[in-house]
């Protein structure tokens, strides 16, 4: 069982926000995800803010709380310099998640004399290089060392099972399994470790069996480790060097899907991921990410995206400062030209794994391949799919989502003021300006009491200003309205007060007209 050292930065989302957004971490700060607190600063904890509280509850306990949204990419970006700093003292650092990284304890402990001395030296170096507080824990295995790092403890060799015995089972970080075990009466890691391994595997599945090994403090080499077939890694060379974050995210998703498909094709899953990149200056970057469970396709894509984000952020920061530093880690690496993913810690896993884009289906796969090819030609935003969301006008009811992104849930609530079906078949991107006249030739208006100032009789499509004199007057044969809409009156920049009309022209066409701030426009053509 190898002695592992884990470097853990407490409240990392808050620290990352402090590093990148410039928020002062000595103030009460809380980071929220899905309206619940994920991390808070020590000043906020003193006031009573805890993880898992809702935003309102946290704000009521601490009125001057600074609230930020959780951004995993920001956490990863800010953690990249910390990992680079640790790598200067010891090789072979693996990232567990943004905020925690692991390394073998043997090398540094021999070099600096003892494990305690190595831990002190690393913590000092991180504080100097990155102005970040860190704690180190040492134990047999990464899982136990991570738990030891919470208290900064160095567990003696062989004492790991005893150390893990009394820890609460929530430390496994698998909410469904933890909930189930609690209901079955197992409340601590020791209690879980006491269950027979074969029964755990049969009842709860492979992921729980891995967790069982971790809870027992046993060797964490994956179950049934076999020699993986040699060609499992996937790579891609980019014609244009990757410099921007969204292009990197797109490339990450594609590679992650390829890797996951290849692994699933062999009936395997991986627990560690090696990400290697070659930059335009010839520099080679490498980072290993490890997970104490099986990596799903989404997990692989997220980690690759975070890592690329971190490397590109280092690039951007170095570009901005403009000087050539002496430390190798700070020198600008350059844009990324080649990317390769190496799966490691592979486990036989024939169970059905959810793919990155939902259920498999042969036609869907073919369509997906064609659409990603077009995205590769024109950019990820060029191919969109539409989703019906809530709104009142035909243009508001549709949201265009780039292909591959998650579609929003369809709106189920009623929207008073929504136009009745049928909807216009043509909705111009920019509303076409028109002029509407009544029977005397005067421009038509609508009073504040929603009364029309005359009977609509003629309509002119306002072209470019020079051609206005030659425009043809279309006769209006039927009309209905005004249908008022008064939206977002509470937000002065977004307020929208308008009325809508449907008109029928002499040649049979029908239009949806909107009058807003005295200007008429055609927002829909019933083509």
């Amino acid at each position, binding site marked *: 069982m190898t002695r592992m050292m884990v470097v853990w930065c407490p409240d990392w989302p808050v620290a990352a926000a402090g590093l990148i957004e410039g928020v002062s971490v000595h103030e009460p700060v809380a980071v929220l995800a899905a309206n619940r607190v994920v991390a808070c600063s020590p000043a906020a904890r003193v006031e009573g803010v805890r993880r898992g509280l809702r935003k309102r509850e946290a704000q009521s306990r601490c009125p001057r709380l600074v609230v930020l949204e959780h951004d995993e990419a920001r956490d990863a970006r800010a953690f990249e310099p910390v990992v680079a700093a640790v790598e200067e003292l010891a090789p072979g650092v693996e990232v567990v998640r943004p905020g925690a990284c692991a390394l073998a304890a043997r090398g540094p402990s021999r070099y600096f004399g003892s494990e305690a001395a190595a831990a002190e030296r690393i913590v000092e170096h991180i504080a100097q290089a990155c102005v970040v507080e860190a704690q180190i824990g040492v134990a047999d295995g990464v899982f136990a060392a991570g738990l030891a790092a919470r208290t900064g403890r160095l567990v003696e060799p062989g004492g790991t099972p005893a150390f893990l015995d009394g820890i609460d089972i929530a430390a496994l970080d698998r909410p469904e399994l933890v909930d189930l075990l609690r209901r079955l009466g197992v409340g601590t890691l020791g209690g879980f470790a006491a269950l027979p391994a074969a029964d755990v595997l049969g009842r709860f599945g492979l992921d729980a069996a891995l967790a069982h090994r971790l809870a027992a403090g046993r060797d964490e080499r994956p179950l049934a480790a076999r020699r993986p077939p040699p060609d499992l890694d996937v790579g891609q060379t980019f014609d244009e060097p990757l410099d921007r974050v969204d292009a990197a995210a797109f490339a990450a998703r594609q590679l992650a899907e390829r890797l996951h498909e290849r692994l699933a094709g062999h009936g395997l899953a991986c627990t560690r991921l090696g990400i290697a990149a070659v930059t335009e200056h010839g520099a080679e970057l490498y980072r290993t990410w490890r997970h104490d469970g099986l990596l799903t396709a989404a997990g692989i894509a997220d980690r690759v995206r975070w890592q690329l984000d971190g490397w590109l952020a280092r690039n951007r920061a170095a570009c901005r400062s403009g000087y050539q530093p002496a430390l190798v880690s700070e020198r600008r690496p350059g844009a990324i030209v080649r990317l390769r993913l190496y799966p490691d810690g592979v486990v036989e896993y024939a169970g059905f794994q959810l793919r990155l884009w939902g259920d498999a289906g042969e*036609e869907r796969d073919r369509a997906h391949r*064609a659409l990603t090819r077009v995205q590769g030609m024109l950019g990820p935003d060029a191919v969109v799919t539409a989703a019906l969301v809530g709104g009142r006008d035909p243009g508001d009811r549709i949201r265009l989502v780039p292909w591959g992104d998650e579609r929003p849930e369809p709106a189920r609530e009623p929207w008073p003021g929504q136009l009745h079906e049928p909807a216009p*078949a043509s909705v111009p991107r920019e509303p076409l300006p028109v002029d509407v006249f009544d029977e005397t030739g005067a421009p038509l208006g609508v009073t504040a009491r929603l009364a*029309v100032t005359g009977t609509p009789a003629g309509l002119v499509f306002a072209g470019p200003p020079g051609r206005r004199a030659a425009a043809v007057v279309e006769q209006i044969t039927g009309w209905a309205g005004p249908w008022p809409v008064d939206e977002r009156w509470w937000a002065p920049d977004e307020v929208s007060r308008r009325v809508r009309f*449907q008109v029928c022209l002499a040649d049979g066409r029908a239009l949806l007209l909107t009058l807003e701030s005295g200007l008429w426009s055609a927002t829909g053509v019933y083509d």
Partner: protein
Amino acid sequence: MAQILTLKRRTVSTGGLSELVRSHGLTGLVRPASAHVLRSDGVGERILPVLPELRGLFPAGGLRRGSTVAVALRGPGPFGATSVLLALLAAASAAGSWCAVVGMPSLGLVAAAELGIALERLALVPDPGPEWPSVVAALLDGIDVVVAAPPGPVPATLASRLAARARQRGSVLVGYGQWTGADLVLETAGGGWSGLDQGRGRLSRRALVVSRHGRGAAARPREATVWIPRDPATPPVESAPLLEATA
């Protein structure tokens, strides 16, 4: 098939295949091979369904895979081309096919959803730029129905190249606008809106008249009327029963 089954179980009684199917609870799963290709309304693997009202306009009774259809912007009627396009896609999309529309940034998607087009299987490329032929070609590889709306008239060589690719891949190419060389051309032949009075009412329905002409079997002009919104009693795709296993 019956021969192979009798080898496995010697105790097959008289009654043949249907008896065997019934006795094993396989009714509905085992079908003769001809039923897979030809349903009672002629729609199968090679033909994508269209709305029942439009079926008379297509010689094959639906959109034949590999064919090219053009929707003209102007016909005997001055407007309605977009509705004709949506009506053309409605049944195929509702039945499960994937559709893509290239080069139409102002397509009314709520109207598409109302006609029955499944928005989760509709992909849009609103601004393909000058490379739109390669975009259309790439989409023909994987999407069942691809609508191409070029910004101007299409040269005949380009149109025939794309049509050949559609034929090779078994997809349907729909050209929206000035398209030459299509097997079938659909046009709007009029049909006004009703329901608006002077200051009262709202647009309630229209009778969209679609006329076709083309090459070969589609050379004789024909017309059909589609009511928009459609009568809720007639679904976009008629689910015809599969032929049952008969002795």
